[in-house]
């Protein structure tokens, strides 16, 4: 099996995540899709680390996890705030700002 | 600091001082503005006296580094062409100030602001004609729009804001195209002789044909809009209708000259080859302008619109003369710029007084003014006659020179152009008949004639119109060497008369 398969998988997962952001309305699910994209990127990093024979990719993946964790905290805080004011977690409801 | 810079800076200084006068003291503001502008006019006459007619290089030059990173200098200097246009501006401004004493009273902003704007504009006008640095020219060229924009928008009549926007957008559009060309020229200069904006150095560039054509067009469209040349003219009637008479005088009398001045100074001097390429096209546009403007003028119901369209016709003549590339055409066009400035000033100022008295600008609202207000009527008549280029009045000499100069190279254009002479009779005499002649229309019986202030304001203009008609030599002497130089540098020589071949 070629290592490249991991990259295909990564690309597919990334695509799914990217589209998930577009099609799902629940803001938490949308956010989860973004997490999926980050994970896909991490998979690519790990795979490339293996190909390149150095650990930089893994380090990046590690950083990504930390950053993602922070992002999750902030993101969920914002989502909860919105939820408290609007009683809704749908991203479509937050569409007053337009045009 | 050269005298030229001083002349240019004086109005700005005046504007600063006016700012210190309390808002309420409007009379003092006006008087001070008059004083300053008169001083500028006197100072500029000293420029003319000190000007050496025998050389064609720039005089009263001054150059200080401004933006060293781009090798931009505050470089000014004048030759004959710029000198006469500066004189035109500086002489017109005090006349406008005096003539339109009450113009600023009902404006959106204070009287003080009006005169501050006028004075700033005067500096810009002098600057734009004096700049010998391309970048500096552009700065004045564009920055000049702002005071005019506010003058139209702040003190004009109905539709002023729409007209002001139209004016500004048109000019900005042209200006931006020119900016692209300026950048091009600058970059090319950087590749060839070291980046510079100095006009004399830029004139030595060797640019390949296609690029030169594009660069030329950038400049030309900007100037054609400014001038205005058909079909870039539609802003002018609107602006002239909306602006106060005083502003219109400066707009038509001076600002539009920047367009034709630019054609000489930049289009031809920087891009002689491209000028040659585009000459037939431009001559065609000019001829269309002449005829088109005249026909449109005949159809106008509004007196300001009429004057605006006559100007379009006249600018057609000026452009035609410039691109005829003969010394007669070139000098004629230069002279025409000056003469048109004064003729239009007279027409517009008097029309302004008429309109202020009648509170209308519709031609058919007037009638029989010759009975009621003879002095005003006569002044208007004389200004009108100058507008139709009656021999003995200023415009004739220049119009004839343009036609003769054009004929020797482009006879067909000149022949069509002469049709403008007939149409001129129509577009001037029809309104004159409607306003001055015929029975006194109701509402005009009590109209008052010109007061002393107005008489003092208009007298010098009329005098200049008459004197320039009979004795244009002093001005031609200033213009001739430069225009000969321009034509020669562009690679043209005057066609030789048949019998001398």
């Amino acid at each position, binding site marked *: 099996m070629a290592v490249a398969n991991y990259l295909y998988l990564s690309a597919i997962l990334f695509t799914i995540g990217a589209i998930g952001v577009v099609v799902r309305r629940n*803001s938490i699910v949308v956010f989860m899709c*973004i997490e999926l994209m980050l994970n896909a990127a991490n998979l690519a990093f790990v795979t490339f680390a293996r190909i390149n024979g150095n650990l930089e990719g893994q380090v990046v993946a590690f950083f990504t996890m930390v950053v993602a964790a922070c992002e999750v905290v902030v993101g969920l805080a914002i989502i909860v705030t*919105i939820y408290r004011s609007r009683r809704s977690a749908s991203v479509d409801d937050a569409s007053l700002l337009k045009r | 600091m050269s005298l030229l810079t001083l002349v240019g800076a004086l109005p700005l200084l005046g504007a600063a001082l006016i700012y210190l006068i309390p808002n309420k003291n409007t009379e003092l503001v006006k008087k001070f503005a008059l004083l300053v502008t008169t001083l500028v006019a006197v100072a500029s006459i000293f420029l003319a006296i000190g000007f050496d007619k025998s050389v064609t290089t720039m005089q009263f030059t001054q150059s200080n580094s*401004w933006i060293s*990173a781009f090798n931009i200098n505050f470089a000014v200097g004048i030759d004959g062409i710029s000198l006469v246009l500066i004189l035109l501006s500086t002489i017109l401004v005090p006349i406008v100030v005096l003539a339109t004493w009450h113009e600023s009273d009902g404006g959106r902003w204070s009287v003080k602001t009006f005169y501050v704007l006028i004075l700033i504009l005067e500096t810009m006008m002098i600057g734009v004609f004096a700049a010998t640095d391309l970048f500096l020219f552009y700065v*004045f060229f564009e920055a000049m729009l702002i005071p005019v924009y506010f003058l139209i928008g702040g003190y004009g009549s109905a539709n002023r804001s729409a007209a002001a926007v139209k004016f500004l957008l048109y000019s*900005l559009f042209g200006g931006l195209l020119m900016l692209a060309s300026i950048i091009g020229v*600058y970059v090319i200069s950087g590749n060839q002789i070291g980046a510079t904006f100095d006009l004399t150095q830029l004139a030595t560039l060797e640019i390949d044909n296609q690029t030169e054509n594009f660069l030329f067009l950038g400049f030309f469209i900007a100037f054609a809009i400014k001038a205005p040349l058909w079909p870039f003219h539609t802003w002018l009637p609107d602006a002239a209708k909306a602006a106060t008479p005083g502003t219109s005088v400066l707009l038509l009398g001076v600002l539009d000259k920047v367009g034709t001045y630019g054609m000489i100074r930049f289009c031809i001097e920087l891009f002689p080859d491209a000028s040659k390429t585009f000459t037939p096209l431009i001559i065609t546009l000019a001829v269309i302008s002449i005829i088109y403007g005249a026909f449109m003028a005949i159809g106008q119901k509004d007196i300001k619109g009429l004057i605006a369209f006559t100007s379009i016709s006249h600018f057609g003549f000026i452009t035609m003369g410039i691109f005829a590339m003969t010394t007669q055409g070139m000098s004629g066009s230069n002279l025409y710029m000056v003469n048109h400035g004064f003729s239009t000033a007279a027409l517009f100022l008097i029309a302004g007084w008429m309109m202020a008295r009648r509170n209308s600008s519709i031609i058919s609202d007037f009638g029989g003014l010759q009975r009621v207000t003879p002095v005003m009527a006569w002044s208007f008549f004389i200004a009108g006659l100058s507008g139709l280029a009656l021999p003995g009045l200023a415009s004739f000499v220049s119009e004839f020179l343009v036609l003769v100069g054009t004929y020797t190279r482009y006879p067909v254009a000149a022949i069509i152009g002469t049709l403008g002479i007939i149409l001129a009779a129509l577009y001037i005499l029809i309104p004159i008949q409607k306003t001055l002649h015929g029975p006194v229309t109701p509402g005009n019986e009590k109209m008052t004639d010109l007061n002393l202030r107005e008489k003092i304001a208009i007298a010098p203009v009329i005098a200049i119109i008459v004197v320039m008609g009979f004795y244009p030599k002093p001005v031609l002497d200033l213009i001739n060497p430069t225009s000969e130089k321009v034509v020669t540098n562009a690679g043209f020589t005057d066609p030789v008369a048949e019998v001398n071949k």
Partner: protein
Amino acid sequence: MLTAPSLGYLLLSPMIIVFAAAVIGVLVEAFMGKTHRAAAQLTISIGALLLALVQLWRIRDLSSTTAAVNSVTIDKAGIFLQATVVILALIAVLLIADQENFTAQASAVPGSNEEAVALLQKNQQTEIFPLFLFAVGGMMLFPVATDLITLFVALEVFSLPLYLLAGLSRRRRLLSQEAALKYFLLGAYASAFFLFGAAFLYGYAGTISLVGISAAAGSANEVFLLIGIIFVSIGLLFKISAVPFHSWTPDVYQGAPTPITAFMAACTKVAAFGALLRIFYIGFAEAQTMWQPIITVIAILTMVLGSVVAIAQRDVKRMLAYSSIAHAGFLLSGVVALSKDGLAASLFYLMAYGLTTLAAFGIIGLVRDSTGEVTDLNRWVGLGKKSPLVGSVFAFLLLSFAGIPLTSGFIGKFAIFSAAYQSGNIAIVVSGVLASAIAAFFYIRVIIMIFFTDPVNDSVSVIIPSVKSKISISVATVASMVFGLAPSLLLTTATNFATFIK
């Protein structure tokens, strides 16, 4: 065993000072009484920024690629960009200090009793200051970061506080929270793209350092490089609001508290462009022929779309948002130019644009009615009559945006288009010029509304600005004016500082 890495603390000190101040701010938040917190926080912020500026001045002639073990390059351009961020932040912090714009209690549900009580008690979310400082720190790091991970971390460090800050408006909180949500979701989305791209760059080059990427040319075919460039660019183009990654900009600019919008519009642009310039000038310079057409197209689209859509805007903040999109397009010409001139022009442009933007948003913050800021353009009608000074200043700023000569905006535009033309990219110059013409239309429209239309009988008024706002707006305006009339100083500096080292 590991050997301890040595850090160039002097070179890093500006950033460290800001981060440290932020941490101190957090401590203040925790231990200081409510009454003096705001003042203390402001003092800390200003102090830290000034100190950072002083440090930047001290290291202005130094440069090093190893200040932080190869992950940060301190060089001339980097220092200039950092200084720009700090100076703009200094002006912005004075606007931010005006607590009137921020919610009294972010956690309170809008319209609830709790909120009313908080308002009554004049509570303040002084956490804004540390958040702001963290953002500034991130923005300082972003343009000097020279490997992909530091870039990513810096990106997040300045983005996260901004996401939060965007949601803290005092009035129209629903809009503000919506802005925060949109900014956050889309920002995170863009980060994911960035990261994915970074992975491929790493795959291509075997390293994540920019120098390594540019040195790796030929070690593989360009497919991974291109994927990497594209996706990394998407992340950065999002931050600078280039089309088609711009959609967040108008919504967020409109919804966020105005001082934050000001800060965001000015500083984010500097930081993001700084990074973009560094990445393209150092990391992707070898692949120039591949990305240049793409970025050119994006730049043209950005200028045109930003200008065209701005015409149709009714809200002044949204209008400026679109204007900022258009300006991003202009600035991209500097990236495309890929020359020292282009870099210098970009540096100048960023400073000039930042100042103008800050002042403009500062003024927007002053136009209010009883319910708070009024951003509806129809209600700005006749403002010039009510407050000539504010009207004139705003008009001047708009003219500067429009790039009328004698304003800094014009010099910037001239410089950047010259550089683009010099690099042979004439299409971008012509489109830029045409877009400028379109753009002029809406700037002028606003000037008309302010000056040439009679005020409607509506209780919009210009509040008398606090001393802080006054200082902030006037400093920004005067600086913008000076850089327009006598741009030499800044231009020369920008030219002198226009070097990236590898």
